[in-house]
């Protein structure tokens, strides 16, 4: 009998339909892979399976019975365990305490630590992990912590285990071990849902594949019925939303910013050039190292190896302030965390990076500050143009425009955009695209990171594709979505 059946699951968030009438059938003793691009709805689907999100429409059936109450607790009780990318373990506690968290065995009102240790050790041994169950899990590797979560699922006698991109940060050896454990779970008649970006693993491991695209089920069937090129086409196959416009003028022939052999952490040996007047796309999957590269260029993190030159001279920023002084600015991915001081007014946010321009000997000139802020907010099309409003009270699109206004004020020569339109409405998106093009037309060197292929295709003159921290290839001319995706997934 089918273990889990979803019918017509729809989930809307403000401004976006994350899932649109999705069906899913999960059989016991099988591995069901869910694939799709960033933002296709995979995470939302997992949340609904975990009971962490309630669908706006549709039905969930478990073991032939309809499920009415949706909560994580209720799903756990049924035997559903979801292992997210950000593992849900208490770092300072040992594996045993984590495995039994919330269901601790007791003896005369006190924790039965012996039983916990024995049970945890047995479950861990089943999964081939030999660690002291009292050792704090923060001292374990990511792969080992994943196994601790799997052990928790075993102890709970889970009947369905869902893993969200479990192999994204593992080494080849660790992946092989995890794959073996998943096959063992399948042999124990447990249903496994496996979300992955690595199509080779999907094809090796999965019995069934479901492809999500823009919140809809684009394809579902037996894994051996689909080959890799078809899989990629199915994931990407959608219309390009943004019209591509030719550059206002050709990029300068010589590079302005050159990056050579840049390495830090898992970013390895990244090299590329950007010219004035050029928009370079930095493509790749989430976690491929795109933001990390931009942060190195912006002086936020320091490279372990590699060199950069700017306008022909050496460029070695030690802090963001150095980069800003040299004319390099970074539009961060997460505007609430990194872009704005939410409690401050628009005016104060806009002038924060260029306060020297409106100050004399350390004293701010209020009239000058106000004029500059009003002009910058108007240039970035902040609506309504009331610069005394607090940033916290603005919509996502307006917040992003305030960040834009702040960096426009610095008159930077190199602009690094990290997901410039994430979570903004279509109107603001068009406006931000216009601004990015205008910067390139004004002779700035521009780098755009985006998980949305249509956005990159519409904006970039050229794209460098990263995969697992390395440059996987380059696409020039009018960007072909298939070529970008093939490089990003490492299939080419």
């Amino acid at each position, binding site marked *: 009998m089918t273990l889990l059946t979803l019918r017509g699951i729809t989930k809307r968030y403000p401004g976006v339909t994350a899932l649109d009438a999705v069906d899913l059938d999960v059989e016991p003793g099988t591995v069901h892979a869910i694939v799709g691009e960033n933002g296709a709805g995979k995470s939302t689907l997992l949340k609904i399976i975990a009971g962490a999100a309630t669908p706006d429409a549709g039905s969930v059936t478990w073991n032939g019975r309809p499920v009415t109450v949706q909560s994580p607790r209720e799903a756990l009780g049924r035997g559903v365990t979801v292992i997210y990318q950000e593992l849900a373990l208490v770092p300072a506690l040992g594996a045993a305490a984590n495995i039994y968290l919330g269901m601790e065995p007791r003896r005369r009102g006190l924790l039965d630590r012996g039983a916990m240790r024995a049970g945890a050790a047995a479950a861990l041994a089943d999964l081939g992990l030999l660690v002291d169950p009292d050792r704090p899990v923060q001292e374990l590797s990511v792969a080992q912590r994943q196994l601790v979560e799997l052990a928790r699922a075993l102890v709970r006698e889970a009947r369905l285990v869902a893993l969200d991109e479990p192999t994204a940060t593992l080494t080849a050896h660790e992946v092989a071990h995890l794959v073996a454990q998943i096959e063992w779970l399948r042999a124990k008649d447990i249903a496994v849902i496996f979300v992955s970006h690595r199509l080779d693993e999907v094809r090796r491991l999965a019995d069934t594949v479901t492809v999500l695209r823009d919140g809809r089920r684009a394809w579902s069937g037996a894994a051996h019925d689909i080959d890799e090129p078809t899989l990629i086409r199915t994931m990407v196959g959608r219309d390009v939303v943004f019209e591509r416009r030719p550059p206002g003028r050709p990029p300068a022939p010589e590079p302005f910013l050159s990056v050579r052999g840049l390495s830090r952490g898992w970013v390895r040996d990244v090299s590329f050039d950007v010219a004035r007047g050029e928009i370079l796309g930095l493509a790749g999957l989430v976690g491929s190292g795109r933001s990390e590269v931009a942060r190195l260029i912006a002086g936020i993190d320091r490279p372990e190896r590699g060199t950069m030159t700017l306008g022909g001279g050496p460029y070695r920023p030690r802090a963001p302030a150095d980069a800003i002084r040299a004319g390099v600015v970074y539009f961060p991915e997460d505007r609430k965390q990194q872009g*704005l001081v939410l409690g*401050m007014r628009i005016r104060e946010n806009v002038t*924060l990076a260029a*306060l020297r321009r409106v100050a004399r000997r350390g*004293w701010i000139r209020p009239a000058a500050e106000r004029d500059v802020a009003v002009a910058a907010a108007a240039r970035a099309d902040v609506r309504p143009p009331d610069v005394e409003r607090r940033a*916290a*009270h603005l919509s996502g699109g307006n917040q992003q425009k305030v960040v834009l206004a702040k960096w426009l004020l610095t008159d930077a020569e190199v602009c690094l955009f990290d997901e410039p339109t994430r979570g903004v409405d279509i109107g603001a998106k068009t406006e931000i695209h216009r601004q990015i093009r205008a910067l390139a037309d004004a002779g700035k060197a521009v780098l755009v990171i985006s998980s949305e292929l249509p956005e990159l295709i519409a904006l970039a003159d050229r794209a460098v594709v990263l995969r697992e921290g390395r440059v996987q290839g380059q696409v020039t001319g009018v960007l072909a979505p298939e070529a970008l995706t093939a490089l990003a997934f490492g299939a080419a």
Partner: protein
Amino acid sequence: MSPARTARSAWIARYGVVLALVALCAVAAVFAPGFFSFANASTILLHVSTNGILTLGMTFVIITAGIDLSVGSLLGLAGVLVAAALTAPGLIGAVGVGGAAVIAALIGLAAGATAGVANGALTAFLGINPFIVTLATMTIARGAARLITGGVPIGFPPIGDPAFTRKVAALDALHGFGGGRLALPGSASGLPIPALVMLALVALGALTLTRTRFGRYVYAVGGNEEAARLSGVPVRAVKVGVYAISGACAGLAGVLLTGQLRSGGPDAGMLYELNAIAAAVIGGASLMGGVGSAWGALTGALLIGVLNNALDLIGVQAFWQEIAKGAIILLAVLFDVWTKQRNGGSAHD
């Protein structure tokens, strides 16, 4: 919620503490005999001045989402150093009585500022939690003050001291600053100089916070340290700056108190850091950072001072006064939560 109601609750959020202070004064004027007089007002100001100066420095630190537990001990250490310098016969002999008073005052100020720089550097460059750093410097400074004095206050020389006259003259010279009054026409008592110092510092602090680049950076660091750093704000320098200001305020308070009492005691300023934190919070500063003002610091310190004074005049036992002060702190925080909810969940209006 209508714009008018939003505007009104924003106004209440902003001036609520001032309203509470005015209301408290009105109630005290009716029920506390002798409250409503110039002499009593100047007494309150004198008593508030120490806490007011500490609260001002504390507010700078709290706006950056920090905390400074060392100010009470730094006040004590500075006071002891001031008294020791004042009564050093060699110093008086070299620079005279007035010179010794000036140098002693500068020593007190510098001691506080230096310790503040150390607090800030440990917090900013080593990333140690400011609660722990300043807890450590609080303990060290208190120990140092007791070590220097041997546990007994330094001050009025024993009869028969060979330098008796000069020492007393030097103590008197500093008393002219810490215990002096500025004569006012039509008033017998005049205005206490420490109160004037406090008011001048609050005005200066308000200008610094609202009109200078440094002040803007203080709010930015407390509001969102990461965004500030990415915007090129020198986050570490700002942190060192606010702890230096807080330390300097503690040093100055120590100078004034030693001058007023003609004595520097090793246990002076005990637990004053908690009064300063309480006053800063009552004055609207948020321990989460990004929110607070110099005038709020003054208002918070005045509210506590007026409450103590009024309860004194009515004849309420000191123990009840402590309970009342605690209740006021709770009320201030509840009021803060209430206005935030009324302002649509924003944490900053």
